[in-house]
């Protein structure tokens, strides 16, 4: 009988309830679209920021390590070196599964045809993986330590391209290298030569690296967790996140979350007000039937329970329809506004439906008036 009464109630007031349903559906559409956008853009932004490159850097404490011999620099300005045989295994041990690349760097100024060129000794494969924005022309190193990469400005200056061979020298040592690729990074790397760490150390004449750049995928929190683990594994070293990226990401995500949460609260309040207005009108219309039901022995909790169930159905139906429409809306907004495809998040469905049922029930406040209905007064027609 409860189900029958509920069905008859919904049918008999379909005009008024349709207004409330439109309000709930509209609210649910915008809310589910915003939630979809928030969840997916959060994921996308994290990916985008991660794709900008390394986000953790390890270097020696200023007082530790050894100076590069023959560099001609004073002790105060000479960068300290770290023992790569100590640091790299420790980094590998402490890194999480989401570590994409660990690239050690030893920088020095070598000469090509007597022209000074900034040279970076590194593990070239790791360096490429840590810098996804680099554009390479040529081929990846095949494992031969004499293969190198050159920045596009260096390539232009010395007439180098993939397959070219040239000599590079540092003090009185010289290496004969083959160009595997020309690099276009749009930055300082375009003026550098990237040499495998082993010949670089041979040129400089010692074993050591100046810094390690690490690229970790994941949220700001995951990056911070990895930084903490690395600090514990390398207590004598300076391990720090590249703040410009992680803080920008955190700030942007925080602002986006706040904006979307504010909009959701506003929409929920407006939807509740609309349902409230509809229910206030319905409560007035239903006073006579409520009076009659009370006269027939219906308790107010049983009678109001019927009306609350009606609102629950309204909220759930509006929420469900709104969710489906919201996914379409979020895809459209993603493509038109943000230029990115937004994948539907199915966990938005239950969240939106629960929110809309809650809002619909919050709109049931006028039903409290029905508790005060005196059947004798109502049935007299007053």
């Amino acid at each position, binding site marked *: 009988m409860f189900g*029958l*009464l509920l069905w008859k109630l919904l049918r008999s007031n379909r005009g008024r309830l349709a207004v409330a349903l439109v309000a709930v559906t509209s609210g649910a559409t915008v809310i589910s679209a915003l939630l979809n956008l928030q969840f997916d853009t959060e994921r996308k932004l994290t990916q985008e920021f991660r794709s900008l490159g390394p986000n953790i850097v390890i270097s020696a404490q200023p007082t530790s390590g050894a100076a590069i011999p023959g560099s001609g620099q004073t002790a105060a300005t000479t960068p300290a070196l770290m023992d790569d045989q100590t640091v790299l295994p420790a980094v590998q041990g402490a890194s999480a599964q989401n570590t994409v690349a660990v690239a050690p760097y030893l920088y020095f100024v070598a000469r090509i045809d007597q022209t000074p060129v900034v040279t970076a000794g590194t593990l070239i494969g790791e360096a490429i993986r840590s810098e996804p924005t680099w554009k390479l022309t040529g081929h990846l190193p095949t494992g031969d330590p004499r293969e190198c990469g050159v920045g596009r400005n260096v390539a232009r200056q010395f007439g180098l391209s993939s397959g070219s061979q040239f000599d590079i020298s540092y003090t009185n040592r010289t290496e004969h290298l083959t160009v595997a690729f020309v690099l276009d990074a749009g930055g300082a790397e375009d003026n550098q030569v990237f040499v495998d760490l082993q010949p670089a150390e041979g040129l400089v004449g010692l074993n050591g690296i100046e810094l390690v750049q690490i690229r970790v995928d994941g949220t700001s929190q995951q990056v911070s967790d990895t930084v903490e683990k690395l600090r514990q594994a390398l207590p004598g070293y300076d391990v720090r996140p590249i703040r410009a990226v992680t803080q920008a990401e955190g700030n942007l995500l925080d602002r986006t979350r706040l904006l979307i949460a504010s909009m959701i609260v506003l929409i929920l309040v407006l939807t509740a007000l609309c349902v409230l207005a509809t229910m206030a009108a319905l409560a007035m219309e239903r006073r006579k039937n409520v009076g009659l*039901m009370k*006269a*027939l*022995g219906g*308790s107010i909790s049983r009678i109001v329970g019927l009306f609350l169930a009606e609102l629950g159905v309204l909220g759930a139906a509006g929420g469900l329809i709104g969710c489906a429409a919201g996914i379409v809306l979020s895809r459209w907004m993603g493509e038109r506004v943000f230029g990115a495809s937004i994948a539907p998040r199915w966990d938005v469905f239950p969240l939106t439906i629960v929110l809309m049922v809650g809002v619909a029930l919050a709109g049931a406040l006028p039903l409290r008036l029905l508790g005060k209905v005196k059947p004798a007064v109502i049935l*007299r*027609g007053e």
Partner: protein
Amino acid sequence: MAPLVEIENLRKEFGSVRALDGVSFNVEAGEWIAIMGPSGSGKTTLINILGGLDTPTSGRAIVDGTDVARLDEAGLTRFRAEKIGFVFQQFHLVSYLTALENVMLAQYFHSTTDQREARAELERVGLGDRLDHLPGELSGGEQQRVAVARALINHPKLLLADEPTGNLDEANEQLVLRLLRELHDEGHTILMVTHAPEIGALADRRIDLAHGRLAHAPARV
């Protein structure tokens, strides 16, 4: 055996207006009582109190051993569901429920619904072919017969009818009165408010009210 209804020095005041002023009488089980009197004499107030729709200011109104004046809201609700059947002048059917569903609504609030029993009750009042009609599709007399079926479905101890023929034409009035007579013959206890002396004459007893007081309460005829 104790009377089914015992009313003792019943008073009801609405602000400064005294609707009932020291009314006392008894009703035996199976009696058909006509409560009569001019407008404002307290007839409807009296049956509202007896039906648990209103509470007295003072005095006692005992129905089947229950003092209505002492019941709280929840107690009054159960009292109405279990002991009272109402028939109103305005029928008061739920407009979006069929005749059958209107009868089942009373069952629902009493305990559990039984469609077969509800159908039998409607057949008894001659509406076996109108089960699935909405109130708007029924004549006044048919609507009142649905109301009678609804009032009887939970086997109440007391049937309270407030001007049950007041909104009916001559033919339908006779139909409803014949129905009430049948119910009386079956042993139902009926308290009926009416203005019309010829309808009041059908009852076992007349209780006349004037200005909230008992004007005339003859013994059983």
